[in-house]
């Protein structure tokens, strides 16, 4: 894991002092709310329906046990005893007092954490594959590049007041995309070119919200040494030409589609080519030093673990189910990547209590080299667990209400906070997720992989556009209605879902989802997943079923 050096530590201390002064000036009335707003947003502080919400950055979703313990401390001391993991691999707290935020940030700084740029019109948290560094299908660990971009993008003197937010994701997996790269303002895939050199394929203009687009290829191959200079060129074009007259048209995806990808590419390449002495040179030694910090931990010789695990799963059905759904192949023999579900059916997706965080921090220290990952599906991951430790781990997780064996299944639902918390929402998301989770849990094994995603408004924080089944909350004359989209996908086969038809009332959502799933089960061929069945057959059988008993 990356550890802060003297420069990083000093920077963070300076940031806390600066923010403390800004809050004091706001409380003294020297700053108007309009002037203060972007300052607090750049430190992760939003004003929501009932209280302030603080979003804490978890760069590329990687946490240490000590950091997770501090997140538990913040939940317990400054909030109501829990936190909510987000689709940007961050955590947010929903019941925060403005006066206490400088102290919270000072506490977080003790473990090298902060809320910098988790909001505001600048770079947001850099996200990546939660299995980075431990999956066998990647070309190299993408996290050093995430860290390099994270540092470069922190309080950038040119790009801190962009037309709108800017999200970057990096993935190095060659087959799977677990980072939703195509849904980002700028996406980077580490790839090898014909000469065998590793560099980046650069995508631009992806994003959800009210105008969903998948990213388009900006550059087929970008050498590593040019990464930051090229990002600077792309961001300069966006900063100068992105729309600022309408917040809903301000993301780079709108610029990409207004100019066309060819013209935009021309502009970016021209800017990049014009750089001479002003071209950013990333010292190779610095890249090397950062990469070294992500070296894999020493793995033990775990021969025999596979046979042991086989005996245990054969003996215990529930454990076998958890192993099947919640563990993934690790690149080291005898090890597993373990997903901890934060989706016990009936509970708000992504919520985690202080006690649960502390338990997971302890378990990570004992069993996973003190490392935890956050996924964009709002679950947690222990990335290095010996297979012989899985049974004990499962028992302890189960005891703490963290044993749900539903990763990737119907009750593993993504949902935004919705109208229960959010000032932008039109409808509630959490109660819909709770009802669906409880209802579908009993038959989710028979259904197989299914991604249900729920947003409480068109801003699409719950990623409904890319759900196999997407659910979007609307307000119809003061009543909560839900529009259903189907066929979306956020992986390597990314697709934007299609709207099935008129929205349905809240009480009709569970029945409607049941009928969609029944139709899929009836029509699917072999191992076909929901979006594949949809692509083969089109909308009509699903639409018919959806509105059949309406």
């Amino acid at each position, binding site marked *: 894991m990356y550890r802060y*050096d003297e*420069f*990083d530590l*000093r*920077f963070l201390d*300076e*940031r806390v*002092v*600066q923010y403390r002064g*800004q809050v004091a*000036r706001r409380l003294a009335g*020297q700053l108007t709310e309009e*002037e203060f707003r*972007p*300052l607090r947003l750049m430190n992760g502080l939003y004003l929501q329906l009932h209280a302030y919400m603080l979003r804490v950055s978890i760069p590329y979703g990687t946490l240490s046990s000590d950091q997770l313990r501090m997140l538990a401390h913040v939940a317990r001391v400054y909030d109501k005893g829990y936190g909510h993991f987000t689709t940007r691999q961050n955590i947010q707290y929903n019941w925060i007092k403005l006066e206490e935020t400088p102290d919270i940030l000072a506490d977080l700084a003790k473990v090298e954490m902060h809320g910098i740029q988790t909001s505001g*019109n600048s770079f947001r948290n850099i996200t990546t594959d939660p299995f980075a560094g431990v999956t066998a299908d990647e070309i190299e660990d993408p996290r050093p590049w995430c860290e390099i971009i994270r*540092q*470069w*993008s*922190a*309080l*950038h*003197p*040119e*790009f*801190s*007041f*962009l037309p709108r937010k800017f999200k970057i994701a990096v993935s190095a997996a060659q087959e799977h995309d677990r980072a939703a790269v195509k849904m980002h303002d700028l996406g980077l895939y580490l790839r090898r070119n014909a000469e065998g050199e590793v560099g980046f394929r650069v995508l631009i203009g992806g994003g959800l919200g009210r105008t969903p687009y998948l990213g388009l290829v900006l550059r087929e191959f970008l050498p590593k040494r040019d990464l930051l200079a090229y990002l600077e060129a792309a961001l*300069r074009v966006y*900063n*100068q030409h992105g729309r*600022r007259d309408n917040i809903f048209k301000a993301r780079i995806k709108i610029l990409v589609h207004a100019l066309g990808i060819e013209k935009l590419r021309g502009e970016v390449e021209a800017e990049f080519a*014009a*750089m001479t*002495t*002003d071209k*950013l040179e*990333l*010292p*190779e*030694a*610095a890249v090397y*030093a950062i990469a070294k910090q992500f070296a894999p931990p020493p793995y033990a010789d775990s021969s025999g673990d596979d046979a042991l695990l086989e005996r245990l799963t054969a003996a215990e059905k529930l454990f076998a189910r958890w192993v099947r759904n919640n563990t993934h192949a690790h690149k080291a023999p005898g090890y597993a990547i373990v997903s901890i579900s934060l989706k016990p059916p009936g509970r708000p997706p992504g919520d985690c209590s202080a006690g649960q965080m502390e338990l997971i921090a302890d378990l990570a220290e004992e069993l996973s080299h003190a490392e935890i990952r956050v996924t964009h599906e709002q679950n947690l991951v222990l990335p290095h667990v010996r297979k012989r430790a899985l049974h004990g781990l499962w028992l302890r997780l189960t005891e703490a209400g963290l044993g749900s064996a539903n990763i990737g299944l119907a009750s593993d639902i993504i949902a935004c906070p919705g109208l229960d918390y959010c000032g932008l929402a039109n409808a509630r998301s959490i109660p819909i997720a709770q009802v669906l989770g409880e209802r579908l849990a009993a038959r989710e094994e028979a259904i197989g992989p299914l991604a249900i995603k729920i947003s409480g408004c068109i801003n699409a924080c719950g990623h409904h556009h890319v759900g196999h089944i997407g659910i979007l909350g609307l307000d119809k004359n003061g009543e909560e209605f839900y529009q259903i989209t189907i066929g979306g996908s956020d992986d390597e086969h990314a697709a934007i879902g299609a709207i099935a038809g008129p929205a349905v009332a809240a009480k009709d959502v569970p029945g409607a989802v049941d009928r969609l799933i029944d139709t899929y089960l009836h029509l699917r061929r072999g191992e076909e997943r929901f979006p594949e069945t949809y692509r083969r057959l089109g909308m009509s059988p699903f639409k018919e079923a959806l509105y059949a008993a309406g």
Partner: protein
Amino acid sequence: MLLDKTGNAAADEWRHLADDEPTPESEAVSVSLKRWEKEHNALKGAGSRLGLRLPNTANPVALNGEVHRFALIALEFPRFNDGRAYSQARLLRSRLRYQGELRATGNVLRDQLLFMRRAGFDSFAVDGARALAEDWAKAFGEFDVFYQPSSDNRPWVMRQRFPTA
């Protein structure tokens, strides 16, 4: 009021001419881009020191060699959160090697001063009463760690870590 690059109060010797005002002989005057484009030849011949006011939609690279005629270029922040002038400043300083005074005008506030300084601005037209009451000069020293090379040529972290690499 005008602040210099360290945040101290500075005298403003410039007169900012409206497009229909006559050009005085001896004073330092600034003109709009529009007027510069229209009265190019006449202004070139004028003996006074010349400044240019660029709207934030203008591409400074289009001025090319001409930038060095100006002793002052003033860029505009119509609202503090409209960040286009930061890119103009970077291009003027780091691409075109502009050496004259680069002034931030418009909605210039304390918490953007350090970003502006780093982007290459070295003078700041601000609300004097507020700047004094809230000690805006302090904003320039809030950080001494920077993660990017920029137009103020201060060292950046990646280089500081490996000075000889």
